[in-house]
């Protein structure tokens, strides 16, 4: 991304009327949102029993991701903090219900009623403290705790996030684990800085022991293994390249002894090289002046 909107302004201010309309009318953004939503629904691994599910769309914005949910035949409830974005959603006559709310204040939904939850490009906003009363750690905790409560047993939540750095991703993941979720990060296109997409895939409830996390997609769309370790390795190498300190000069170097020298000469004789004969002067130090 060219610039990160979290750094510019809080979401309810950044996405004002003009920005909300611009965001929704950009065909490129619409396409990206649709692709990410399809992938999130795929990772959600909903049972294929033909019954529509009731999903929660966190940070639904103007309803782009919710539209994908509707196209797949499910019902959804959308939650967003930007009134302008929600107004655009109303104009577009989206099928889901909309709520104006702050996910950092906790999700005010009854326990155990949602069949799943998705979020596209929203959770990273919680890592920024936009008000003096905001504590990112507490807001993430409130969010994940209330989300865990309102999901039914065995339900999943998939968040597509743009973490600013490793620390931010760790912060989000730790908050989810502490709330009781199981799961991890799935990375699509891990080697491409432009196409790279990170999905936080979380499972709620006891059957998480058997749950399996999908593999991330590679450039050619195939699954690649060990995303996390590979990713860590890449990051480590990158950091090492950038910050490696200049090699310290060894100033107490010990020279090689006569035994080493004799061994080397014998070795070179065996290889057929021309080697001076060993004498009493072999291995002696020359005088200073030479």
């Amino acid at each position, binding site marked *: 991304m060219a610039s990160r909107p979290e750094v510019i302004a809080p979401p309810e201010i950044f996405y004002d009327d003009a920005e909300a309309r611009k965001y929704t009318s950009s065909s490129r953004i619409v396409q990206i949102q649709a692709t990410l939503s399809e992938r999130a629904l795929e990772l959600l691994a909903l049972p294929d029993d*033909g*019954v*529509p599910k*009731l999903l929660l769309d966190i940070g639904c914005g103007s309803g782009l991701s919710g539209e994908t949910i509707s196209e797949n035949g499910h*019902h959804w*409830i959308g939650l967003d*903090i930007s*009134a302008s974005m*929600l*107004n655009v959603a*109303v104009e577009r006559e989206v099928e889901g*219900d*909309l*709520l*104006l*709310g*702050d996910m950092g*204040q*906790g*999700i*005010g*939904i*009854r326990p*155990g*009623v*949602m069949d799943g939850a998705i979020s596209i490009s929203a959770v990273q906003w919680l890592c920024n403290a936009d*008000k003096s*009363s905001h504590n990112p750690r507490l807001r993430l905790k*409130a969010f994940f705790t*209330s989300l865990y409560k*309102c999901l039914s047993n065995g339900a999943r939540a998939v968040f597509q996030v743009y973490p600013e750095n490793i620390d931010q991703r760790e912060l989000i993941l730790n908050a989810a684990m502490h709330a009781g979720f199981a799961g991890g990060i799935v990375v699509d296109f891990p080697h491409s800085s432009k196409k790279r997409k990170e999905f936080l895939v979380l499972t709620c409830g006891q059957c998480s022991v058997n749950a399996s996390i999908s593999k991330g997609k590679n450039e050619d769309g195939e699954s690649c293994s060990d995303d996390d370790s590979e990713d860590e390795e890449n990051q480590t190498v990158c950091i090492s390249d950038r910050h490696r300190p200049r090699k310290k000069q060894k100033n107490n170097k010990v020279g090689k002894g006569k035994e080493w020298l004799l061994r080397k000469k014998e070795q070179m004789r065996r290889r057929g090289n021309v080697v001076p004969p060993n004498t009493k002067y072999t291995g002696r130090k020359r005088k200073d002046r030479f």
Partner: protein
Amino acid sequence: MRLITHNMLSSNIKGVVNGFPLRIEAEKVVEKTVEMNGEFLKKMFEKIDWKAFVDASRAMGYTELPEEADSSMLDSDEFLNRFHHALLELHLEEGVLVCPETGRRFPVSKGIPNMLLHEDEV
């Protein structure tokens, strides 16, 4: 906002033990036709808090739901139609949702409830 969402919503204010159900004060109610899915209705029937659902639909002006309901009534097409209508077709466009414990009022504008809390309520 449809009643399916209202049946999920609860008050999230600090100190509130049971913030469900929110009382509805309806100023404007709109009806929009939605295609019925019997399987979804049966699944939602198990999740719905029926008492809250009946009270909410009456606050919205729809009074044709029975006070009590059990799963055998789902075999009746007439009941399914009423259930579907109340659950998915009634929309609260303007009004207020009231927290049952604190009396906090959450305004509903253009069908969108404003559930934002003040700093002292978090």
